[in-house]
C-alpha cells in the first residue's frame, strides 16, 4: 500500500494496486462537529476527480464529499451510513467512505503528503 495522500478538500486516499480507498480527514471531522448523516456514491457509478461523491451532515450543516481522483466505485462503507458517529470516532481508519478502481495513478501526484496536509490544515483553519 502506498503512503496516505491528502486533498485540499480534506479527503485522504490510499492506493493498493489500482484500487483507492477514500475517506475524510480527522481535521475535517473536527471542523464539522458531530456527524449525523452520510450519503455515499452508488456502487458501479463513475466519479470524476474533484467532483461530488457523497455528503456528510453534522448537527449544524451539510457538506459535500469530493473525490480526489477519478474512477469506478467498487465498494462503499455501509457501516458509516448506518452509524455516522463512527466517522468522528475513526475517520482515518474504519470509517472510510468508498473504494475506486482508478485508471490514472498520476492523478495522485498533485495531492499532499501528511506533512504538507497538516501544514495546510493548520493554515486554513486559523
Amino acid at each position, binding site marked *: 500500500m502506498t503512503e496516505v495522500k491528502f486533498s485540499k478538500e480534506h479527503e485522504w486516499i490510499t492506493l493498493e494496486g489500482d484500487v483507492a480507498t477514500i475517506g475524510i480527514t480527522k481535521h475535517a471531522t473536527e471542523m464539522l462537529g458531530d456527524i*449525523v448523516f452520510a450519503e455515499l456514491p452508488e456502487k458501479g457509478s463513475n466519479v470524476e476527480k474533484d467532483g461530488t461523491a457523497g455528503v456528510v451532515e453534522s448537527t*449544524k*450543516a*451539510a457538506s459535500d464529499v469530493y473525490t480526489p481522483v477519478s474512477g469506478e466505485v467498487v465498494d462503499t462503507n455501509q457501516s458509516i451510513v448506518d452509524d455516522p458517529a463512527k466517522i468522528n470516532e475513526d475517520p482515518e481508519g474504519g470509517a472510510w467512505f468508498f473504494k475506486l478502481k482508478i485508471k490514472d495513478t498520476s492523478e495522485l501526484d498533485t495531492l499532499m503528503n501528511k506533512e504538507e496536509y497538516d501544514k495546510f490544515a493548520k493554515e486554513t483553519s486559523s
Partner: protein
Amino acid sequence: MEIKKTSLNKLHQNNNAKFVEFAGYEMPIQYSKGIIEEHKFTRSHSGIFDVSHMGQLFIYGDESLTEELEKIFPLDLKNLKQNCSKYSFLMNEDAGIYDDLIITKIKEGYLIILNAACKDKDFEILSNLLGSKFKMNLDNNRSLIAIQGPKSVEILNSVINGVDQLNFMTGNWFDSDNQRLFVTRSGYTGEDGFEISISNEKAEKFVENLIGKGAQLIGLGARDTLRLEAGLCLYGHELDINKTPVEANLRWAISKSRLSNGGFIGSKKIMNQMQDGAKQIRVGIKPEGRLIAREKTKIFNDTDKQIGEITSGTFGPSVNGPIAMGYVDKEFSKVDTKILLEVRGKKHPASVCGLPFYKKNYVKGVN
C-alpha cells in the same frame, strides 16, 4: 459594525468555545465536547446558556401601562398576577410577527425578554406606540443566564435560596451576593430551568459558581437542537413578519378573553383566521430513515405539487433521529399525513407528526 461581546465572552474563550456571529454578537456555538454531548448533558444534568444577547426591556408604570399594553399584546394583562410570565408576540396590523417574547408582570411594571436580532426594532416600535408616558429601559447593563435541565433547580437553589419555590412561568427578585437578581422559572429547551437577569460585572463569577456545582456551559448549537426537539419556534425560522400566530399554530398563546372583543394590534386578522382557518400551518415533520431536511427544503404531496417548506431541520440527539418543523397547506397538516421532502434533487418520504418530539418536563405545582 464592530461585533458585540457579552460579559461572559472571556469565560467562553477559556472553555474552548467555537464562536459564531449571531445577531451582531460573538456567541459560542459549541464548546469542546460538541453539540450532541452538550444536548444530552442538558437533558440529563444541567446546562448553562449565555443568552445575554437577548433584550431585557423594563417598562415602568401602573394600571395605565397595563391598559396601553393590552392594546398591543393579545394578552389578558389585567388579570395577570404579579410575577407571572406569558409568551406573546409583537405584531403588525396584519398580525405579522415582529418578534416573539416573554412578558412578566413585575412590581415596577413589566419586563419583556426580546430576541437579540429584533430588540432594537422592538424598542423603536414600542416607544412609538407607548409615547413618552412610560419610562422604558432596554437594559444593556444586565446579562441573562439560562440554566436548564433536571439538576438545575438543586444547583441554582444552592446559590440563590428560594428559587425552588417558583412555578414554571413565574419569577421574582432575589438577593444574592449583594445585588438584586430577577429569576424566572422558564427557558427554551423543554426542560425545567431558570433564567437569571444579573448585572454584567457579577455574571462571570456567578456562572463560574454554577460550573463549580456541576453545571456545564452549553452553546447555541445545542440550544437549537433542544428547542427543536421541544417543538419551540425560533424567530427568523418558524416566525417572521409574513407569519401570524394562527399560522404558526400558537393560538394557545392568545388569551381567550381577548378574542371576543379584540382591540389589540392584528386582532382583526387573527379573529378572521381563527374562524376561517389559515391557508398554511406549522407542523412537526419526521423524515424517514436518517435524512436531514434543512430550512428551505421544499415539501411536496404525492402528485408532485409543492405544499410547503421546512423552516428548521436537524438531527435530534435525544430522539436519535432527524426532526423538522415547517409550514404545509392546511389540508396536509393532519398528523401522519405522508409527504415528500426534496433534498439534493431527490424526493424522500416523511410524515407530518405531533409536537413536541421530546416530552417537556416543566415544573408547575411547587406552590
